[in-house]
């Protein structure tokens, strides 16, 4: 193939997605624990890390994942925490104060953003989080970068004792490009507990000096970023210089091959002085960034005159075509996107009878995030709100509180099993604490998996990330413990008429009620049966390492497994 030239090849290059590259780097960087909550486009990181032999686990939500990660990093371990962009909102509370406490080992938080909203409810730009929380942020452009930057981020975190954020986007997470496996990091010290109360107990007396210390550390990181090899300066035509970041770097090189270009890899703190030199070296300095004008604002605040992109390019992903338009200052209407067939509920999805019933009963449906959000599509149009993970609970209650009684009685909160465990739980506590006068009806669509993101396990399945048996969270058990007045578990496919009769009864009842509509996802059912069989065999062989209980197996037939009445 190649005639001479290159010397003997080093390690063979692999074609990896950005997510897979992060997992490989985590292994090579000696990451002791990976934790997160599934969310497109981040999900494959922990799955790959597990497949490579790393210790990876799903948490019930992103806040818990970060807190578990923080504890491990307090003990000196190297930790990877993964989530999608909106997951960082959930984890933001510990995140901001973790900037004050810092870490003893290393902690890297992956924020997988979704510009263009391929599979998300918003396109927030999480570069803002680095600035707001005061945490260093790195941004890779392809899978090789994802590998190299994760190792660099882990090293940086360990060196400066701060959590480090690494922002990826859908195209970096899911595109496959060639990756050369490099050295990784020397082994970490074995975790051991060293008490450091002023550094880790954030009462005001300790937090005030901690904030000052954070700013001192960030000033050091800023100096380091000025010399960082993660930033690339491509010398080209002095007439045009483009400042860019992330995947856009690739588009820029293709769209304007002759231009000078600066790829910001250390997104925060910015290497402001190098960027000042870059801007001064070209006649026209244009910032081409995907999403919000984060670079433009910071550069202008530093007194560096730069040109930003027209507002129309804030929306959606950038591409080679769009970068060409930005360079040309073209604000004419863009060609419409190619017509796409929208997704829909699978033909054999167990949720069809549920949505059919909700539509026919003309319910006002406070919905949630998951496959079942597709109940909003034709032919059902049976979802009235969808805002955030777990929001169906509170939104449904709020509607019930203020609507006229006849309307209030039609309100239903509908939420998936994984989403309920993620953050629906708190809404259920609210329901018993501030019950609407008309009562309320919650339907948990329990298909036994986190279907939307590709069938991940969660605490309600009773299996860990790699499908081993573990303790199982019971949704109906939790509701009973909360004191709900009516808790039913039904199979909506086996007896749709029975489901409808029950829902009518609960809507009319004026109580606080939960209906768990339980039937496995058709895409996951075969695997679930396989996992159950393997785990049962292990248990029979005397493997008793976990606390798995003998929970009632998924029912078939309209079996009201539990219609027990509790007390409010």
């Amino acid at each position, binding site marked *: *193939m*190649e005639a001479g030239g290159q010397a003997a090849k080093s390690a063979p*290059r692999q*074609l990896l997605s950005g997510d897979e590259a992060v997992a490989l780097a985590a292994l090579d960087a000696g990451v002791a624990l990976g934790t997160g909550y599934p969310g*497109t*486009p981040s999900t494959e990181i922990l799955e790959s890390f597990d497949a490579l032999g790393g210790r990876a686990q799903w948490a019930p939500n992103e806040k818990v994942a970060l807190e578990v990660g923080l504890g491990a990093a307090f003990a000196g371990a190297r930790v990877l925490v993964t989530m999608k962009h909106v997951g960082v909102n959930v984890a933001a509370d510990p995140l901001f104060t973790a900037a004050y406490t810092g870490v003893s080992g290393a902690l890297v938080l992956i924020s997988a953003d979704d510009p263009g909203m*391929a*599979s998300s409810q918003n396109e927030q730009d999480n570069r803002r989080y680095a600035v707001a929380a005061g945490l260093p942020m790195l941004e890779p452009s*392809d899978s090789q970068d994802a590998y190299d930057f994760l190792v660099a981020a882990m090293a940086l975190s360990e060196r400066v004792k701060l959590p480090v954020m690494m922002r990826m986007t*859908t*195209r970096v997470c*899911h*595109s*496959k*490009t*060639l990756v050369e496996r490099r050295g990784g990091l020397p082994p970490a010290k074995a975790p051991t507990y060293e008490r450091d109360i002023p550094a880790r107990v954030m009462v005001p007396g300790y937090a005030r000096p901690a904030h000052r210390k954070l700013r001192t550390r960030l000033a050091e990181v800023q100096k380091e970023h000025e010399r960082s090899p993660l930033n690339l300066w491509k010398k080209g035509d002095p007439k045009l210089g483009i400042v860019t970041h992330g*995947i856009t770097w*690739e*588009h820029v*090189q*293709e769209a304007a091959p002759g231009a000078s270009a600066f790829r910001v890899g250390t997104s925060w703190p910015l290497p402001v002085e190098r960027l000042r030199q870059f801007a001064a070296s070209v006649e026209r300095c244009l910032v081409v960034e995907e999403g919000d004008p984060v670079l433009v604002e910071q550069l202008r605040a530093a007194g560096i005159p730069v040109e930003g992109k027209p507002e129309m390019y804030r929306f959606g992903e950038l*591409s*080679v*075509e769009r970068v060409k338009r930005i360079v040309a200052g073209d604000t004419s209407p863009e*060609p419409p996107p*190619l*017509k*796409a*067939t*929208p*997704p*829909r*509920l*699978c*033909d054999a999805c167990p949720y069809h009878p549920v949505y059919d019933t909700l539509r026919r009963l003309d319910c006002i449906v406070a919905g949630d995030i998951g*496959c079942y959000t*597709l109940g909003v599509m034709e032919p059902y149009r049976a979802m009235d709100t969808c805002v955030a993970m777990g929001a169906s609970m509170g939104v449904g209650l709020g509607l019930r509180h203020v609507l006229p009684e006849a309307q209030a009685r039609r309100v239903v909160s509908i939420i998936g099993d994984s989403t309920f465990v993620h953050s629906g739980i708190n809404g259920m506590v609210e329901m018993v604490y501030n019950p609407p006068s008309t009562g309320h009806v919650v339907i948990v669509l329990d298909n036994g998996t986190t279907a*939307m*993101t*590709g069938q991940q396990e969660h605490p309600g399945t009773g299996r860990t990330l790699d499908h081993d048996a573990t303790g199982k969270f019971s949704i109906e058990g939790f509701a009973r413990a909360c004191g709900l007045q009516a808790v039913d578990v039904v199979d909506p496919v086996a007896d749709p008429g029975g489901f409808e009769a029950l829902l009518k009864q609960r809507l009319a009842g004026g109580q606080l009620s939960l209906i768990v509509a339980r039937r496995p996802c058709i895409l996951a059912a075969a695997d679930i049966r396989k996992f159950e069989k393997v785990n049962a065999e292990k248990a029979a062989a005397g493997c008793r390492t976990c606390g798995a209980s003998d929970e009632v197996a998924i029912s078939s037939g309209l079996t009201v497994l539990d219609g027990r009445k509790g007390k409010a």
Partner: protein
Amino acid sequence: MSRVVNVVVAGLGGQGAIKASDILADAACRAGHDVKKAEIHGMSQRGGSVTSDVRFGEKVLSPMVPRGEADFLVVLDPDQVEVNRPVLRDGGLVFGPDFVDEKTLTNRKSLNVALLGALSHHLDIPEASWLEAVRAALPERLHDVNEKAFRVGRATAARAAKP
């Protein structure tokens, strides 16, 4: 600099468009090319449209094929052919689901690999690299069916290319 070859694979969720693009990208990689592949997963798994871009050559920059620059369009669903045609450059080739006679396939599900066979006739990737990539992407019990499908597609394209 050698030109980058751009291929777009399109279909509906569950038809194997992403699997086909994985095999193509792996085959190009085995043949020594720089390769990038881009697609969107997520919602598109639920029966919606899926497109996957594969680019290979000496050096590939953006992983996404710009509209109007695809050399080849491989489509697994009849309804997705016209919708995706604008990705093609002038003179670009389409391999739609009817390019291969379904009756010649042992299993209809190997249409994706059969169309890769057709595509392979036009690409600078050795047949051995293709077959390695097919085997690496699929469980052993599916190897024979898919290798056969690949050869059916390849032969069909060879016949079609003759005047």
